[in-house]
């Protein structure tokens, strides 16, 4: 009689297998050109991580959470939305998704370097700020999607959350409200098996986070998060449904955090190296390269050339950001109120005068 047995997942969507072959019977919306583009973004993301971690180790970058291992989720989902009309509401680990969505890499980099004006998301770029307060972005994303519909716009919102963040009350409230108002939104849950040191098993006893969608009256789907084709397809389905008035979706991308939580973290304290090694065999980038190599579209030479090109692109953004104007003391008071109250203005003068001498 039980309604909801904790049953195994009916099917995790999968197209491109770890060995670079296509799952039998599977088909993807992604054509070859498009897949090459996806690979480019995925490589760019990984290379950026690597560079930034090196910089951070030299004290030249802020606390940073790499997307390494999750590139298929990050890029596959971003490619399913339209930067011209759709909105992206990030947590923090999908930096390259926001760049794909139009946020210049030097701008988001400048934020990590503590710049103020140079870190401002340019007008017209439909990306909200990185959210450090876990899950707080979700009710906001629901409100945004709802509001866009009320304003008569043709937009869809995609928002990101982790396996850890799925435990917050905000997750529940945001998804439930989205179901009620049929907001045009895609909740994209990157289940990378870790919330800092806390493993997926400790995070919830559910067999699948995607099951939760039923509790909010909309579709939930689980997808191999290391399979950019499957991620893209699932995200396209969800975006299309949202755009057509079909309401929200929840996508659980099952992936693996192939690096530390952030640059202050040391996973050797809690992570089983075997699990990590196993995860590496499911690398999202390698499988695309193998697949394309099978088609004669990829080889070591091309890899070297792209790597150099992308490194150079990233470097330019990094240097641009590093060279951007440093914050001034009075930036403490910037962007709080449209018209600061007199008391705040007085404090501002005090600071400026004090800084002057």
């Amino acid at each position, binding site marked *: 009689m039980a309604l909801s047995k904790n049953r195994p997942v009916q099917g995790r969507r999968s197209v491109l297998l770890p060995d670079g072959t296509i799952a039998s019977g599977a088909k993807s919306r992604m054509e070859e050109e498009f897949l090459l583009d996806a690979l480019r973004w995925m490589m760019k993301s990984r290379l950026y991580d690597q560079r930034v971690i090196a910089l951070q180790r030299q004290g030249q970058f802020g606390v940073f959470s790499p997307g390494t291992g999750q590139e298929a989720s990050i890029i596959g989902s971003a490619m399913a939305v339209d930067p011209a009309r759709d909105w992206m509401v990030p947590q923090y680990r999908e930096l390259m998704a926001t760049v794909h969505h139009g946020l210049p890499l030097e701008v988001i980099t400048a934020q990590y370097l503590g710049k103020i004006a140079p870190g*401002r998301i340019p007008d017209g770029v439909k990306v909200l700020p990185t959210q450090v307060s876990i899950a*707080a972005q979700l009710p906001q994303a629901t409100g945004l999607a*709802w*509001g866009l519909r*009320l*304003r008569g716009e043709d937009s869809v919102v995609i928002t990101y959350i982790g396996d850890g963040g799925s435990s917050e009350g905000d997750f529940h409230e945001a998804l439930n409200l989205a179901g009620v108002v049929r907001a045009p939104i895609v909740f994209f849950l990157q289940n990378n098996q870790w919330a800092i040191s806390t493993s997926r098993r400790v995070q919830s006893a559910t067999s699948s986070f995607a099951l939760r969608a039923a509790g909010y009256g909309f579709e939930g789907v689980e997808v191999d998060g290391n399979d950019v084709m499957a991620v893209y397809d699932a995200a396209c389905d969800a975006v299309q449904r949202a755009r057509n008035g079909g309401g929200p979706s929840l996508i659980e991308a099952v992936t693996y955090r192939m690096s530390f939580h952030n640059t202050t973290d040391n996973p050797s304290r809690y992570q089983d190296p075997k699990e990590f090694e196993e995860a590496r065999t499911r690398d999202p980038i390698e499988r695309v390269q193998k697949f394309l190599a099978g088609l004669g579209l990829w080889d070591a030479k091309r890899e070297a050339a792209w790597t150099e090109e992308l490194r150079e692109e990233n470097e330019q953004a990094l240097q641009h950001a590093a060279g951007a104007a440093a914050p001034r003391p009075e930036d403490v008071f910037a*962007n709080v109120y*449209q018209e600061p109250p007199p008391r705040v203005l007085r404090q501002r003068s005090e600071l400026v005068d004090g800084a002057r001498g």
Partner: protein
Amino acid sequence: MPQRNIVEAINNALADEMESDPRVMVLGLDVGKLGGVFRTTSGLVERFGAERVVDTPLAEASIIGASLGLALAGMVPVAEIQFLGFTAQGFHQLGPQLGKYRQRSRGRYHCQVTVRAPFGGGIRSPEFHSDAVEAQFVQSPGIKVVMPSNPYDAKGLLIEAIRDPDPVLYCEPDRLYRAGRSEVPDGPYTVPFGKAAVVRQGEDVTLVAWSAAVELCMRAAEKLADEGVSATVLDLRTLVPLDVETLCAEVVKTGRCVIVHEAPLSAGFGAEISATLMEEVFYELDAPVARVAAYDVPFPAASLEDYYLPSMDRVLTAARRTMQS
């Protein structure tokens, strides 16, 4: 001129703004057909439709968080939290999110959001309903904190709040909701933030208050007058921004000050007033500034609220003591 009580003034302000600006919408628990548990939104859903007057699920964090998102989409949400004490459930979406969003986005985004909530003792509400937690939000910079005390201000300050590009917490004194009607013009008008009102001018002592405590101070001032003590009553109207100038001027005029509030004493906003006077007009004080507040315990059972809240007796005692110093 039309006479309205506070409920009617709020209702009228909402209707006027919804009429003149199609982006304005109301959301919260029971704001639709019921018209809100105190009827402040009565008639709005009938007039403006269920897309703009929305009964939400019972979840405060999402009411506030979604309002932030609605604002980013270009709507102008006025969210109702059924009682101020239940902002606790959405606390992280209020101060830390709404209050910081402009800063966090380096000025790219701002949040034109008003959060309304009734509060205060005196109506025998169940627990949590009466909590006067306004000072907690003063420690969340970025949020303006608005505390109307009468129908005219209730309307003017609410319209100001709705039009303010930055987030505003607007706290409604439920004890005074229907305490009496006074003149409230038809049509939109605003009362500016950061301008305290001298609601009674005196010479001997300045009583400083906001929200329902203003009414208590007015009654106390009458009694004091009978004793030959002439009291100024200053209604701060907004705690953020704070009108330091008028506050200091009115206290300097009398040299004596008693602050009255319904929140617990320790770290209540009265402390800020007293500290500000200490810093600004210490040498002009003829007596130490006194505070009359609720006690440093949680709001008790309704049967005890009269003992807990600042009473007329306590205000008079403090004023008399201040006069004798």
